Each structure stands twice: as structure tokens, then as C-alpha cells.
């Protein structure tokens, strides 16, 4: 995993070296060096200060799905680098590196799974993959997943962890917002429930599309939930941000989410929602 640090707030990420994985990682919230296995056992929450480290898509799925129940979908066929984009690095190279570093095809991992025995379509975004940004690949994976959920009448569960749209795919990434909302409408047409879980971070174009229009919206305690980044807000408006701005609690106080739950209770909460939302049971 690459070193990624977001200075905006207290949430921290795994400190890494070269593979194989380092034994110790530092919590940026409290400075503690934590034994890696201990961190894993504690669901990537700092045992000293309680700060949330974000989860990779695979870790997230492992934490929610019944053991061995997840069956990954095949990767979609998409236009790679549709704009021929290049900044300090060619976009193709960025994608290549992200794939190598994460072992994922794109910033979201989707498949069929069971949660407490209930068959679902489950997708989790991965912030390590170019900031969990949504481009054509993410859009296609989500669309396919939702259309299958509609067809098979299985609830769709999405764990959001995204900085927003994939800048390097330009308007095509913007239009993925429309694509995933269209697929969400397919779910609605089939009266199939959709549950969104907002984690760190749920921002930008992903929040302003598929992240905000679930039937049930659960926020993880450590989530960051907002459309615009705090720096952009401060720079554009000169406003001072209130304490706790864009936290899960802020979203709850402003009526945006149905529940805020700690990571350790997320699966239980999801199961409670699912068992009410599915017929029978």
C-alpha cells in the first residue's frame, strides 16, 4: 500500500514500506506505533486513540459478508484512458500502478455475497485506487452490479469510499454520475432495496449521485460526508468551518443519514436493515 496521508482531518492511513508488509504502522492521530496484526484484529481502529484507519475494499467486504460467500464479478470491458490524459504521469501509468498496488481492477470491487445468510449484491469502493474516484470503470462495475441486483431481486449494498469523480476521464467520469443513477432507477423499478454505507471519505460526485439516494443510508462513525472539500469551501467562501463539519454526526444532525454506527457494529446494523427489507426471513 502506498503512503497516503490526508491532512484535512484526524483520519489516518496505514504507513507502509516495501512488500512484504511492515510489522508496525503509525497512527497519525496519536503518533502511536501499532503492531500491524493488533490493528487488524481491532478492525483497523487505533487501539490507543480510537482513530479509524480506512479499509481496503477486500477488507471491507471481509468485514461485512459471510465467510467465503463473496463471489467477485468479472471485470467489465471499458475504454481505458478515453481522453488520452497525461499530467505529471500518463493516466494509463497511474491506473497501472493503482492496479499493481491494490490488486484491484478498479476503485470498486463488486460481487454476489451473503450477509447473515441473505443473498445480496455487494460492492465496496477502495480509496487506495486513485482516491476511490469514479471513472468509466467504477461506473460500469456499479451499473452491472445494480442491474444484476434488479434482475435477481437481491438487495444492493454499496460501501462508499471515494474522493469523487476521476478527473483524468473528464466529462466521461462526470457522466458516470448519471449512469449509476440510471442503474439505481432500475433497482427502483424492480422494487429492490438499496443500502448505502458511507465511510471515510464519501464526497464529490459519488456522494452527489449514488451515495445519496439509497433506501437506507448508514454512516460509519469515522466517515467524512460532504460534497465539497473543506479547503475549497474555505477558499471560495472565506467561511470558517464549524467544528465537526462533514463528520457522520454532522450528516446525522442535518437529516442526511438514517444511522451512525461504529465499525464493530456495522455488519450487525446492516443485517438488521437487510432482514427487515427482504421478504420472508
Amino acid at each position, binding site marked *: 500500500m502506498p503512503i497516503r496521508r490526508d491532512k484535512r482531518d484526524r483520519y489516518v492511513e496505514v504507513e507502509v514500506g516495501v512488500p512484504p508488509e511492515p510489522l508496525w504502522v503509525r497512527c497519525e492521530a496519536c503518533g502511536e506505533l501499532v503492531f500491524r496484526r493488533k490493528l487488524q484484529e481491532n478492525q483497523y481502529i487505533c487501539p490507543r486513540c480510537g482513530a479509524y484507519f480506512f479499509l481496503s475494499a477486500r477488507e471491507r467486504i471481509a468485514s461485512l459478508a459471510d465467510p467465503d460467500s463473496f463471489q467477485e464479478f468479472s471485470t*467489465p*470491458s*471499458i*475504454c481505458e484512458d*478515453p*481522453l488520452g*490524459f*497525461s*499530467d*505529471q504521469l500518463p493516466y494509463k501509468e497511474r491506473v497501472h500502478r493503482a492496479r499493481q498496488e491494490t490488486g484491484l481492477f478498479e476503485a470498486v470491487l463488486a460481487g454476489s455475497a451473503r450477509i447473515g445468510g441473505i443473498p445480496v449484491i455487494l460492492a465496496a469502493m477502495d480509496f487506495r485506487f486513485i482516491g476511490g474516484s469514479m*471513472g*468509466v470503470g467504477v*461506473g*460500469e462495475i456499479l*451499473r452491472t452490479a445494480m442491474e444484476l441486483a434488479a434482475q435477481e431481486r437481491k438487495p444492493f449494498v454499496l460501501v462508499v469510499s471515494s474522493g469523487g*469523480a*476521476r*478527473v*483524468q*476521464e*473528464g*466529462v*466521461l*467520469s*462526470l*457522466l*458516470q*454520475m*448519471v*449512469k449509476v*443513477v*440510471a*442503474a*439505481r*432507477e432500475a433497482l427502483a423499478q424492480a422494487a429492490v432495496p438499496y443500502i448505502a454505507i458511507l465511510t471515510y471519505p464519501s464526497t*464529490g*460526485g459519488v*456522494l*452527489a*449521485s449514488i*451515495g*445519496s*439516494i439509497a433506501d437506507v443510508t448508514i454512516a460509519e462513525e469515522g466517515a467524512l460526508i*460532504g*460534497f*465539497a*472539500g473543506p479547503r*475549497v*469551501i474555505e477558499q*471560495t*467562501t472565506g*467561511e470558517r*468551518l*464549524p467544528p465537526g*463539519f*462533514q463528520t457522520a454526526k*454532522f450528516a446525522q444532525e*442535518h*437529516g*442526511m443519514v438514517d444511522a451512525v454506527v461504529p465499525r464493530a457494529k456495522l455488519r450487525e446494523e446492516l443485517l438488521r436493515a437487510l432482514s427487515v427489507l427482504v421478504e420472508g426471513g
Partner: protein
Amino acid sequence: MTDEEHLRILEEKAAELRRLAQENGLDLSAELAILEQKIAELKRTVCEGLSAWGRVQLARRPDRPSGLSFAQALCDAFYELRGDRAISDDPALRGGVAKLAGKRIAILFHQRGMTPEEQRQARFGMASAQGYWKAKRIMEIAARLKLPLLTLINTPGAYPGVQAEAHNIAGAIACCIWQMLRHPGPTVAVILGEGGSGGAVALAAADRVLMLENATYSVISPEGAASILWKDAKFAPQAAENLKLTARDLWALGVVDEVIPEPPGGAHTDLQKTVAAVREAVIHHFSELSRLSLDELLRLRYNRYRHVGSAGAPN
């Protein structure tokens, strides 16, 4: 001397000639005709030769066609609907019911303002949560009354502010996209100036998306892209080029159905002509769409967006 500077000098000369002719009763029409032809040629060159970054500048002009006055010029009649019915009324995103070529439509548009006071009020066309909640409400009225829906887009983006976040601007944008996708009638979006990210796409999930020749449509501002990807806002022109944000680029990508030509020199140089061109294009597309059954309309709309960027897609 750049073409633009050259153009300004020629325009000043022409103005002087006209003044001379009038004041002294001279017939300088022959001289003026030559000058005007040169000006027209130069205007064409200026626009055609524009870089993506040049078009970004053009698209951002405060005198670009947009807002209330443009909507009023475009329509035979317009009745504004205001307020989101729960919080307030946003002056940056406006709309209502209108008549276009004698037919009823619903219309939504960004208001940027031309004077500094107007611009401050309308936050330069950056609509807040309340604006998008209002837009959703007007879309629902349009659905109820079975009106075709026209949107005119010109915004740097949705407003990034504390109150916007507190009123769930992300949810409001998502709901606009959703409602537009469900709209039980033809929908046409026209990008007139800046089509800035989420604030633009909220009104752009249409059956047909048209762009003025010098308008832009982008996932992020070139400055934003430059500071994120190049770590330096000075790379904005380069970012603009890479982002493929011009009308022609997007037409080539299959994102845009029609590029509406602007008068030589840009849309702001002849608003009447621009209005006429937009009007004609919009009427044309509405008329095409009106021939489809509702089922067909929805199926085509869904397919359009379901396949953006997938390997089999037209781009």
C-alpha cells in the same frame, strides 16, 4: 500583436469611421465595408483558432448568453417559479414554465449575473442546495403537467459552502439527476457557457445535450485539475487541453449531440443571433423527441447513460 488585439484596433477604427461619416455627412460605406469584412474574418480566426483554455475564458465571460434575460429572449413567454418549499429561494438557479414556439415547456437555468451586484447575489451562478431542491420541485411540476423540460447550463459548479452542505447539496444534485432521468417527457439540455461539474450535470441528464460552440463542460475546473494533478494552478491551460472540455471534443466523444455555432467573435458579440441559433436547435430536438412514445423515450434515455464509456459505446 495577437489576433484579439488586432481585432480591437480594427473595431475602434470602424467606430471612428462611422462617427466621421455621420458627423460630416460623408459616404464612407465602401471603406467601412472593407473594414467590416476584415473584422468578420478576424473574428472567425479568433474563435476557430482558440485553444481549449481560450474557450474556457470565453465561456466564463459575464456577458455570455445565459440566465433570466436569455431565457426570456428564447421563450415567447416565461413565468418564474420560486422557492424550494422548505428552506428558501436560490437566486443562482431559476426556472419556471414557459412557452417555446407556442408550446408549453418547463425551463431551468443558472443565473450568473452581469453586474457585480447581480453576480454577488447569484454567487456567479453557483447554485446552493436550495437551488437544486427547487429544480427538483420544478421538474416534478413539469412531470405532473406533462411538459417537456429544457435546461440552460452555465455554472462554475455547485456552491461550496457550509449552508449548502448542511442542506445536503449532494443529495439535491443526485435527486435532480434522478428526477430528470424519470421525466415523463422529452428533455433537452443546452450548455451555454461553463458546464461546471456536479452543478452542471444535475441539469444535464437529458435526452439531448447541446453545446454552444465555445461553451465548456468539465468534471473540474482546469485550475482545479492543475493544482491537484500538476500541483500548480499555472498548468491550467494544459489541464484544459487534457480535459477535452470543448464542445467539439465532447461532440467527438459522443457526449454532445449538437454543437450550436456562435456568431463570429463569440456568442456575446451578437446575442440575438445566438438566441435564434439556440432556439432553432432546441425546437428541432424537441420536435424529433416528440415523435417518440414515452416508453421509447425512456428506453433510449436510459441506454444513452447506461453505456457512457463502456467498450461498445459510440465514443
